[in-house]
């Protein structure tokens, strides 16, 4: 009788201890995580113009930003004098799938009010709208933003490049995919003045 | 434990639980898959109703009548272009407006051709169609007509010239699947 009562007590104490230690451990880990996040350096590595950067799903090299009067790479100047901001870059699709998510590669940060959203990505090889990047083939791409009429033209374009990591099995469908998009580098490009073309 | 005698009532309870288990499992499966099974049932075409030539039949809130199935052109590569004309008198506008409409041509061997957009030059060859825009089945359903309205519906098909003589129009609407209509072609 006494023996079984003692055994029961031992079990109760040990289970309470386990729960307590587990809870403390969880608390320590989460506070450690938030502390680490708070400590994370706010400055991203600097990406120089022309240097190539491995961003997991993509490898990119930013070349130059310039003002232009053309809405497309081979088009005539816009008749109403609208200006455009063009960014030249190289993109390699490093994944194993044909891909069209290139609009996620970078964001303009801080955002510039003069730039109208949803720029168009042009494939310079075809002077046509880029619709897909084939794996392992480097392409020269021009991104063209329309500038709001009468807006102040930015002098510099600061871009934050996003990286993604590959997961062979995701948590929901156990299918391979690219996840955890986060900023990995920043570049600041001078905006060259509009070329005067006859 | 095993030597401990079990009372008569407890044994009965256990047996009962064991026998209820399959019933509960079946019920669980049914509740889980009920919606999927129902959706599957409503998306199938299982029971055909044969509509005699030049007769009307009701389906999905309207009276449907085949008014013409003609071969209007034959392309050089052995393709025939066919035009199908139907007439629908709306009885129940709510059921009638359920999309999409599935209007196809069916050969005796089960092959089916879906409607195609035809170039105006192919359609306008018919004198009575000149200058007319006849809605397709889905367009007619989407126009949400009132009860009593009579709609003219036209669809174009491209199919092998050899099968053009033996195909029959088949109409199925989401409101009444798995029942559907198969029209007899006059002549």
């Amino acid at each position, binding site marked *: 009788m006494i023996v079984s009562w003692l055994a029961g007590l031992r079990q109760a104490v040990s289970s309470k201890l386990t729960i307590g230690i587990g809870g403390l451990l969880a608390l320590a880990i989460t506070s450690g995580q938030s502390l680490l996040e708070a400590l994370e350096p706010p400055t991203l590595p600097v990406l120089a113009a022309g240097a190539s950067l491995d961003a997991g799903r993509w490898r990119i090299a930013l070349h130059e930003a310039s003002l232009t009067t053309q809405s497309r790479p081979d088009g005539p100047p816009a008749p109403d004098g609208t200006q455009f901001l063009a960014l030249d870059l190289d993109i390699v699709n490093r994944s194993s799938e044909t891909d069209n998510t290139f609009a996620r590669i970078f964001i303009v940060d801080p955002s510039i009010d003069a730039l109208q959203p949803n720029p168009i990505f042009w494939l310079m*090889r075809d002077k046509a709208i880029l619709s897909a990047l*084939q*794996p392992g*083939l480097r392409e020269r791409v021009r991104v063209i933003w329309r500038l709001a009429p009468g807006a102040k033209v930015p002098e510099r374009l600061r871009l934050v490049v996003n990286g993604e990591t590959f997961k062979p099995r995701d948590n929901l*469908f156990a299918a391979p995919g690219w996840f955890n998009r986060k900023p990995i580098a920043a570049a600041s490009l001078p905006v060259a003045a509009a070329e005067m073309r006859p | 434990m095993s030597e401990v005698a079990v009372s008569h009532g407890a044994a009965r309870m256990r047996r009962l639980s064991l026998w209820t288990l399959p019933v509960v499992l079946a019920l669980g499966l049914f509740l889980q898959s009920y919606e999927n099974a129902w959706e599957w049932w409503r998306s199938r075409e299982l029971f055909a109703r044969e509509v005699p030539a030049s007769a009307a039949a009701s389906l999905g809130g309207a009276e449907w009548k085949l008014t013409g199935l003609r071969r209007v052109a034959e392309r050089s590569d052995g393709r025939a272009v066919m035009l199908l004309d139907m007439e629908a008198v709306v009885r129940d506008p709510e059921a009638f407006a359920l999309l999409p409409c599935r209007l196809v041509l069916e050969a005796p061997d089960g092959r089916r*051709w879906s409607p195609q957009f035809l170039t105006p030059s192919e359609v306008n060859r018919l004198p009575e169609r000149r200058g007319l825009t006849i809605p397709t089945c889905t367009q007619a359903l989407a126009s949400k007509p009132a009860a009593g309205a009579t709609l003219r519906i036209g669809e174009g098909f*491209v*199919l092998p010239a050899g099968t053009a003589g033996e195909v029959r129009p088949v109409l199925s609407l989401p409101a009444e699947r798995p029942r559907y209509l198969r029209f007899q072609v006059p002549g």
Partner: protein
Amino acid sequence: MSGVFAKLGAPLIAALLLAGMQRFTPGYAEITGPIPLKGDLGETLTGRGFTVRADKVLLAEKLRFKAYGREVERDTGGVFALVIARLDAQPVSTTVSGAIWRSAQGARFVASPRFQGAPRLLGTDRLEPGLPQRGVFIFEVPREAVAGATLLVAASRWPRLDTQAEIALPATLGTPASLLDLNELAYE
């Protein structure tokens, strides 16, 4: 001895078993994935909604074609791989828009979208039963992705519980032609 085993061995075995199951049970995407239909060049494969036969593979560095009255020339950083094939719908009208060049290394190249308006491009127009289409699938791939590739053909890019024809392509292909004209290819 048996006490120690019960305390340490059983949880260990359970952990190993669980890890193994987590690692090797097929995932949802695999269970509900494409249903493969394997074949060779020149063989007619009959899937659930279509039949396909690939006849020939051609390589080119440049392609030329007429689209909407304009002469277009396309070049590439890799090489263009063309597969001359025949598609037929069976038994109902359908579109076969999931053609993929799978390299020996496993990379998947979707048919190039750079050829809109090109003649006899497969996968763009709807197929009607009894009216087979003979034409070409065009892929743009790096040179190292050419040898020992597989052509995948399905109704969509990600078929779910549906046929995906897997056609083994030749292990070696000749040197690419410097320029091919799509309007002058022998499709028949």
